[in-house]
């Protein structure tokens, strides 16, 4: 008991060192630090299926004819529907949550905008990755930073052009992007495109700002996915 006093400083340092990877190495605002405090969030996998990020406020736009299918260039069947859902900060946080059960899935998140040239350039690769890794239990989502006024026009138009109807698409509408950026990764400063990969437990295992290298990204995905 009397030695507990001597152990306290060391235990405090140990606790500090256990902060998740990607925490800031420099001073941040209190709100940003609070937002970044728990990037690893667990919740039951079952609730993941039922989660609806639109609940409360969001706007949903469906282009094309719901339920219809068409043939892609390679003969794969894909729905023609391009759904863009508007999300706020809370919905963003929920989207990043992973389950704790055996059916929890790794998650690939791509932040992009139609006005961002490298974002547009890499998008077809993202569509291909989504298709190729569907059987390996990878969940892929895209989050647009376009102006919310474009949720019915430019964003779904582009998604249709690149045949991204099967790719869950969201548009983030926040007044203060600093909090959202720090929620994702305190070391990210908002440059687009940005891609983040989480394993099934919700731990970020790969991140990339700027146009990603497909081979590098696929190698990272291979490490966290398994064939079903």
């Amino acid at each position, binding site marked *: 008991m009397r030695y507990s006093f001597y152990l306290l400083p060391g235990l405090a340092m140990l606790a500090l060192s*256990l902060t998740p*990877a990607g925490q800031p190495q420099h001073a941040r605002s209190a709100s940003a630090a609070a937002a970044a405090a728990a990037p690893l969030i667990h919740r039951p996998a079952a609730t993941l299926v039922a989660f609806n990020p639109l609940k409360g406020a969001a706007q949903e736009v469906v282009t094309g004819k719901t339920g219809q299918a068409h043939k892609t260039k390679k003969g794969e069947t894909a729905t023609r529907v391009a759904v863009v859902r508007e999300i706020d900060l809370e919905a963003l946080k929920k989207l990043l949550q992973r389950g704790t059960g055996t059916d929890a899935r790794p998650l690939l998140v791509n932040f992009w905008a139609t006005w961002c040239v490298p974002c547009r350039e890499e998008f077809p690769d993202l569509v291909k990755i989504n298709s190729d890794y569907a059987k390996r239990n990878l969940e892929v989502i895209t989050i647009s930073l376009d102006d919310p006024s474009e949720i019915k026009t430019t964003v779904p138009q582009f998604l249709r052009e690149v045949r991204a109807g099967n790719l869950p698409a969201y548009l983030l509408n926040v007044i*203060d992007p600093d909090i959202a950026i720090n929620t994702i990764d305190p070391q990210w400063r908002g*440059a687009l495109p940005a891609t983040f990969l989480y394993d099934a437990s919700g731990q970020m295992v790969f991140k*990339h700002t700027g146009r990603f290298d497909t081979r590098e990204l696929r190698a990272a995905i291979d490490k966290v996915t398994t064939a079903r």
Partner: protein
Amino acid sequence: MKKRYAFAISLSIMMALSLVVAGAARRGVAASGDKVAAAAIGSTIANFKLSDTSGKEQTLSALKGTNGTVLIFISTQCPVVRDYMERIGKLAADYKERGVNVIGINANASESMDDVKAHIAANNLTFPVMKDKGNKVADQLGAERTPEVFFLDAANKLVYHGRIDNHRNISLVNANDLRDAIDATLAGKPVVKAEASAFGCTIKRAS
């Protein structure tokens, strides 16, 4: 005496353990891409060279304001920058008489000096825009997107880094982070929020 030894040993073990754990945690995320380490808040920015639109070499020492310098990485193509051009121009005009100079820096390898000149003319820019050939200054400061601001005080110490304000749509602005930082510095007060991020275009670096 024994207590002192016990304390020292305990502290050493915990320090070593914490370093190992922290190192392992950081190895957990494979980072790649254009990311470069940003200059730390409070660090003094060393003098650097940029090219003006006539091709003449300029230095930070020559460009700096008496009371501070705002370095803004901009682009001729980025739509986010386009939305901010008027605000940057007003900022430059508002603070010029107070001894703060605004310097635009174009570090995009994909945008030529002619592009920069055309951009200045098209936007009637009244503040100087420099070309950062080989993105050397962008690397020195750790700039990675446009628009991205580095505000230096009179002694070239970095006191604010990040966005101009919270929203590219001016009607939704409710946080003027850069102006707050300049005003605080001119008043001799510490900057409350020294860093703030926003979405923007990546700087297209020379390969």
